[in-house]
């Protein structure tokens, strides 16, 4: 065969593989693979190729469908017609027009933290920790709209966030979402009088 000299592996378009594919050859997937793919060589998912699991290779080129994480040691190219549902990670990533991606995409030098975690941290500081939130510059933009309405006082600018300490600590719990705080402490009728009598 002409191909026997090369280390090329082809999963033909009529083929279906259920299970792991590992090794160090160049892999060309035109069929269906349901299982993890780990190769050291180049990996191509052709137009008719479908992979329903994670895959990783040196240089990964996707023209077909992938449902799983795509990891490239060197690069990942998502060409026209590619459909990827999963995370994409590689030092270099190219997404061509016509390629569809749903997932987290990260190239080298983009930092370790996911943007989702910072957004979540911002939400918790504004919602659950209003007293401490005035220190955060990100939260100050939301405050001026809330504070005047709750206090019924003079409108304040965003720059006031750091200066007016007492007002913010007092007003912020009102701005908190959820059920309003109890107005009267839960004491039985006549309990206050009983306390006074004891003294």
């Amino acid at each position, binding site marked *: 065969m002409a191909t026997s000299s090369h280390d090329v*592996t*082809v999963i033909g378009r009529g083929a279906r593989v259920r*299970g792991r*594919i590992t090794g160090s050859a160049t892999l060309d997937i035109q069929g269906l693979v349901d299982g993890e793919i780990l190769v050291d060589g180049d990996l191509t998912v052709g137009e008719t190729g479908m992979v329903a699991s994670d895959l990783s290779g040196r240089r990964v080129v996707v023209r077909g469908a992938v449902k799983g994480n795509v990891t490239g040691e060197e690069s990942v190219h998502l060409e026209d017609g590619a459909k990827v549902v999963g995370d994409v990670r590689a030092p270099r990533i190219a997404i061509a027009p016509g390629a569809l991606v749903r997932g987290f995409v990260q190239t080298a030098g983009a930092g370790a933290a996911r943007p989702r975690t910072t957004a979540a941290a911002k939400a918790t500081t504004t919602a659950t920790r209003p007293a401490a939130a005035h220190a955060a510059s990100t939260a100050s933009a939301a405050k001026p709209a809330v504070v005047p309405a709750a206090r019924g006082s003079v409108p304040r600018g965003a720059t006031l966030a750091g200066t007016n300490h007492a007002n913010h600590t007092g007003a912020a719990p009102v701005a908190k979402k959820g059920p309003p705080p109890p107005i009267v402490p839960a004491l039985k009728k006549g309990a206050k009088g009983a306390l006074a009598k004891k003294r």
Partner: protein
Amino acid sequence: MASTIIGAGITIEGEITTDEDVLVQGTVRGKLNAKDGVVVEHGGVVEADVTGGPLTVSGSVTGNISSTDRVDLQPGARVVGNVKATRITIADGAQFKGNVDMDV
């Protein structure tokens, strides 16, 4: 050119199902179901039950073989397992252990 090629250096653990022909130069563990021809080249290792059309073995097959067509064991082939096929040839120099079931 075979439509599905398991190249040397590649290992597939699991089930391969295809309605086309398969060329094995690497390693396959599990099951190999092909409707068309299967060729296990020299250096190819199949540790699986194989079903398909005409089967040519120059490498190693451990597992039962069932073919709708002929099975050819080439010199250097090593087959351990039962073989069921319409016609079977075993070349001089091929190693084989197992039952043979031909349509008589």
